[in-house]
């Protein structure tokens, strides 16, 4: 029997006991469906994170801070009170509440510039705005974020802030649009807002700026739910905020952005971080900040996949059972085929191929329906529960992982089929033909 006939016979044998085959396929279907969905969940979320990281851009930038010795105020220290450091300021970096960092002085910036692998350094001017006020007369608290060159925010309307322009421009987050008194995202673009800062001698200054864009809120937004000014506005606000400070106090930054070669490998980046650490700095890339998130998601997907695999294992016993019954039923046929000169290897192949085919049917149907269901769930959730995360396709599918799911199920089915197939292959033709 040649290979094509073997496969053909296996396939047609599958449909001989339709009900039994159908039930086995259903069992596999459940496992494959679950596996495909959980796989899709991982793919969808991770693709979203990847997309946002790419959209954020500036993959060749890391944020550098100088951690203070008395790192946090959480917990008690046996060493007694930490020594006062006049350069310690609150950090804008993610960390435990109350974490402080030592501010970066122009000297630090020079040191950073001198570190091997650092191409360019730019201090991040942090601005603490008092309020923002729009067309409505209500004042709202606002956090001011900053973009470094190369970074972008994801916009729902308008344009990116133009750092080359002398006009005072600002991009506001979606959540501010209605509060500031605009009807919609596009309506807000072109509007004027007032931002206020307080300087060192407690005088409040108000600055008017034009809204040029409205930003999406996403997990990976470089600025979070904060106002993004352009360079001109940043400089303006920063200067106003520092008015009245002695010169040696003015140039103090919580953090700085450091550029490295954009073709740097992970190892290069790690090496650069190590060198920064040797000099008492700590560097974090955008990918680092999101890496933790990805690890958590991968972990969850792994656990879900494990459940799906358990379902598949249960289904594989169904295959064993189905095929044992099939072998039992076809004992005479097997005997006849062997009497007619069919080798044991071919008989084994016939039954294990049948198992693999049942696995293929179950997994293909399961994967197909999972894709449909996943699409429906994603689009339903994206307008309701996950409406705050535009651009997120919760369950996405890529052809490679689906092919892998189908292959894995077929391999499991094939392995389950080997037991009955071996019994069929061992059957003695004389005994089989005598079987009533």
């Amino acid at each position: 029997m040649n290979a094509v006939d073997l496969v053909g016979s296996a396939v047609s044998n599958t449909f001989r006991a339709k009900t039994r085959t159908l039930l086995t396929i259903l069992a596999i279907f459940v496992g494959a469906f679950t596996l495909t969905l959980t796989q899709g969940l991982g793919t969808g979320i991770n693709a979203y994170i990847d997309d946002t990281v790419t959209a954020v851009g500036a993959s060749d930038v890391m944020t550098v801070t100088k951690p203070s010795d008395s790192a946090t105020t959480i917990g008690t220290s046996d060493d007694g009170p930490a020594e006062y450091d006049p350069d310690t300021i609150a950090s804008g970096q993610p960390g435990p509440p109350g974490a402080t960092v030592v501010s970066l002085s122009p000297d630090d910036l020079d040191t950073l510039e001198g570190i091997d692998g650092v191409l360019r350094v730019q201090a991040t001017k942090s601005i603490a705005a008092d309020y923002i006020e729009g067309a409505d007369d209500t004042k709202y608290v606002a956090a001011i974020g900053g973009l470094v060159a190369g970074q972008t925010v994801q916009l729902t309307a308008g344009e990116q802030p133009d750092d080359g322009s002398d006009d005072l421009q600002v991009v506001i987050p979606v959540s501010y649009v209605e509060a500031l008194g605009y009807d919609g995202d596009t309506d807000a673009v072109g509007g004027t807002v007032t931002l206020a800062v307080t300087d060192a001698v407690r005088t409040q200054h108000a600055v008017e700026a034009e809204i040029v864009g409205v930003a999406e809120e996403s997990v990976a937004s470089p600025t979070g739910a904060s106002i993004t000014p352009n360079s001109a506005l940043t400089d303006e606000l920063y200067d106003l905020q520092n008015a009245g400070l002695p010169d040696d106090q003015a140039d103090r930054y919580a953090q700085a952005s450091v550029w490295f070669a954009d073709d740097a490998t992970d190892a290069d980046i790690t090496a650069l971080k190590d060198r920064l650490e040797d000099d008492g700095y700590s560097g974090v890339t955008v990918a680092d900040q999101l890496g933790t998130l990805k690890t958590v998601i991968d972990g969850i997907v792994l656990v879900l996949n494990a459940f799906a695999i358990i379902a598949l294992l249960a289904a594989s016993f169904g295959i064993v059972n189905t095929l044992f019954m099939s072998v039992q039923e076809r004992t005479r046929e097997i005997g006849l085929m062997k009497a007619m000169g069919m080798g044991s290897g071919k008989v084994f192949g016939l039954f294990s191929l049948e198992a693999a085919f049942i696995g293929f049917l179950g997994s293909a149907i399961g994967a197909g329906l999972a894709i449909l269901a996943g699409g429906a769930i994603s689009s339903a959730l994206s307008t309701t529960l996950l409406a705050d995360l535009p651009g997120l396709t919760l369950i996405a599918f890529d052809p490679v992982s689906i092919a892998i799911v189908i292959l894995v199920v077929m391999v499991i089915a094939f392995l389950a089929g080997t037991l009955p197939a071996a019994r069929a292959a061992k059957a003695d033709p004389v005994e089989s033909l005598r079987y009533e």
Partner: protein
Amino acid sequence: MPTPIIQVTDVRKSYGRGQNRFDALKGVSFDIAEGESVAIIGKSGSGKSTLMHTLALLDAPTSGSIALEGVDTSTLAGRRLNRTRNRTFGFVFQQFFLTANASVLDNVVLPMKIAGVPHAERKRRGMAALEQLDLADKAKNKAVNLSGGQKQRAVIARALVNDPRIIFADEPTGNLDSSTGAVVEDILFDLNRENGITLIIVTHDEDLAARCDRRIVIRDGLLVEDSRPNGPGSADTTHGRHGAEGVAA
């Protein structure tokens, strides 16, 4: 005298061991010439089915040898054994052993499918065999929908399709009424006469056995009679070469 197609020399076959040992064949010897029609007769439990299985190489004898065209079959194994069975033998069984839900044609071409004959040729030769047995119009029917006589004709077509040298028929008319049984017998003997296919029929039907050239009677695992009532030497009732010895044992 040409080499006999089958030479059976002191074949013994036993099952089980020790206390449970059962000797199905206790030393049987005979030759079958090409083109003969041979009836192997015996009651159930006489060992006639065991003898047929060993002749058809489905079972190896415990001792003794079976030579096929002068070749000791114990030297055949694995692929060669399978190929020899596939090319040399055709089988007709009392219970038909047709796959119920497959078409008649699919059932008939099974030996060629096993042999790896290409699809088109399978179909052509399968249809030719069905034509020969007046079943061409039933080719697409499911085997389960045939009458008993039609089923047995389909089985004969299947046995024929690979141009075998020997057809083994195990109670070929056992499940048929006498008129359809007679038709099936006619077909088998026609094949024997016209195509020169050696016919080995295992039966306990004396009427069927009487139509064969030669009758071999098995009782309790021994050959007790080997006669040619219709054959060239119909007068002689020679016993097997080791017949007397066998009785003594």
